[in-house]
């Protein structure tokens, strides 16, 4: 275990070094999410003013903005689509070779690269999250329990999301070009997992269907914990279900890789 951590923590360190090499890219990345949050705030403010109402589907403007603010941060932190595109490209162009000839795992190496690339953003976002009780007092993180629950659910969301992207990555062993699938999934995921609009704003029918998928665990689950919208007595069963989804998606990814690697042509080298 210690050797494993030593090996893969070195990958995280490398991605930090690489990310810090390009300062402008880092600043723009951080700015883009802040500007997104600001735009969302302006849109919802106008909707509330235009409707002349104080509540939309049980949300006040402040509650809604707090919810969306957190949803966007979680959505950003769990999204490994850039890493997935790199992985697909590695399979298509023979870049996978350099992972296969070394004692490392393609899956874990990229998971660590993803965490490494994102962790510098994590630091900035956690500063925002830490300021949350002051910006939106009483709307989120009102107890320590909620803070720890949110962190655990965020960890689950990041891992589950990575597994779901990994399944698409493995499909490229057969179809080679699946970047369109990843991009389509990414766009659908932003909307359908509640990253821009809370899930409860969707029609009943959709909500019924979505409970049979892992999508609610990607954004809605951690944010609902942080904002106290999910009763604590439901946490255990939800965490268990989320954990099951992690196992299922991990198993599917592992199986697809096992068969897919036999199709691999190692092209381009």
């Amino acid at each position, binding site marked *: 275990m210690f*050797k494993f951590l*030593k*090996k893969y*923590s*070195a*990958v995280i360190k*490398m991605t930090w*070094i*690489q990310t810090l*090499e*390009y300062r402008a890219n880092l600043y723009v990345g951080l700015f883009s999410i802040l500007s997104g949050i600001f735009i969302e705030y302006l849109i919802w403010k106008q909707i509330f003013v235009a409707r002349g109402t104080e509540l939309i589907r049980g949300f006040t403007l402040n509650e809604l903005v707090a919810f969306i603010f957190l949803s966007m941060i979680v959505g950003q932190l769990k999204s490994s689509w850039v890493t997935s595109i790199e992985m697909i490209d590695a399979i298509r162009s*023979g*870049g996978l*070779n*350099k992972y*296969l*000839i*070394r*004692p*490392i795992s393609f899956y874990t190496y990229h998971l660590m690269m993803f965490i490494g690339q994102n962790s510098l953003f994590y630091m900035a976002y956690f500063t925002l999250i830490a300021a949350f009780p002051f910006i939106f007092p009483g709307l989120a993180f009102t107890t320590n329990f909620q803070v720890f629950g949110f962190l655990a659910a965020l960890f689950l969301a990041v891992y589950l999301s990575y597994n779901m992207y990994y399944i698409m990555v493995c499909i490229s062993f057969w179809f080679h070009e699946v970047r369109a699938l990843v991009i389509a999934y990414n766009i659908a995921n932003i909307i359908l997992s509640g990253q821009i609009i809370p899930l409860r704003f969707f029609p009943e029918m959709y909500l019924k269907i979505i409970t049979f998928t892992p999508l609610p665990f990607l954004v809605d689950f951690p944010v609902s914990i942080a904002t106290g919208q999910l009763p604590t007595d439901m946490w255990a069963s939800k965490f268990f279900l989320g954990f099951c989804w992690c196992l299922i998606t991990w198993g599917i990814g592992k199986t697809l890789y096992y068969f897919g*690697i*036999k199709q*691999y*042509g*190692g092209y*381009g*080298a």
Partner: protein
Amino acid sequence: MSIHIQNISKSFTSFKREAGLKGAFQSFINRKYETFHALQNINLDVDSGEIVGILGENGAGKTTLIKLMVGLLYPTDGSIHIDGYTPWKRKNEFLKQISVVMGQKNQLWWDIPASESFLLNQKIYEIPQAEYKKTLEELVQLLNVEDKLNVQVRRLSLGERMKMEIIAALLHKPKFILLDEPTIGLDVISQSKIREFIKFYNEEHNSTFLLTSHYMNDIQALCDRVFVIHKGHGLYDGNFNALVNKIKPQKKLIFEFPHAPAEDMIVSLQQEFEFNLIRNVVTAELPDKQLTKLLGSLFKLDDPVTFSVEELPVEDTMRTFFSNPEKFL
């Protein structure tokens, strides 16, 4: 590290289509697949410490064979055992003992200095700190890149980058090293330095090397033994010089007379041997025995100002060979 390859075959399935937009539409609706046999029944045994050159034209199957040996590909048929390991099972113990340098692919991180990639490899291969430091110092000195270690990889020249790739590939002291076109695109000096290094490393560590290269000078300088692949079949396994002699046993003679030799003597010699005489200089390309005889006859005519016997350029010889390999074997 010994290698035992038995009846290995590898086929690829790909789809074919006609050129142009019409072909693209036809292929989209009704895709036609074809099977390409990249390797067929290859057998090869390599002993520990050998340097073996794998020769063949583009598309002959050299790189496919290398990929099978390091476990990048699964074979269609046959078996490969490298010190008891089956490569495509990719056991960590096996992967720690091998290394591959592909001239057209790199494992170094492009945007940061090579020294960072070396540190990552230290962790990946679990190399103890003292051993890592010692090996790195040794390799850096041998390849003369001390001042380039902290330069971003993308800012290095092709030759410097290749040297860094070689360092990254050898840090864990592999016992089995595969070099696929290691000198491709390099200038003559860099090529020769890398050749010298490979030779030195092989002698020092008794590592087994398998090498593919389109530069016959690489093969001639490094490999006593070559394995020739032609259209996926093993065609020759043996001594490189013996192969060259089989293809073109001639050597080149240049013999310069101090004065113009007697014409009748030259005419008489030309009836027996094929050679040219231009301005007191005789040039001939003949097999060893004939060349010795001619040289003796020329010495009888006069003492030369200068003379030399040279091997024919091996690149030309191999070009002749690959134009119709079956003819020579």
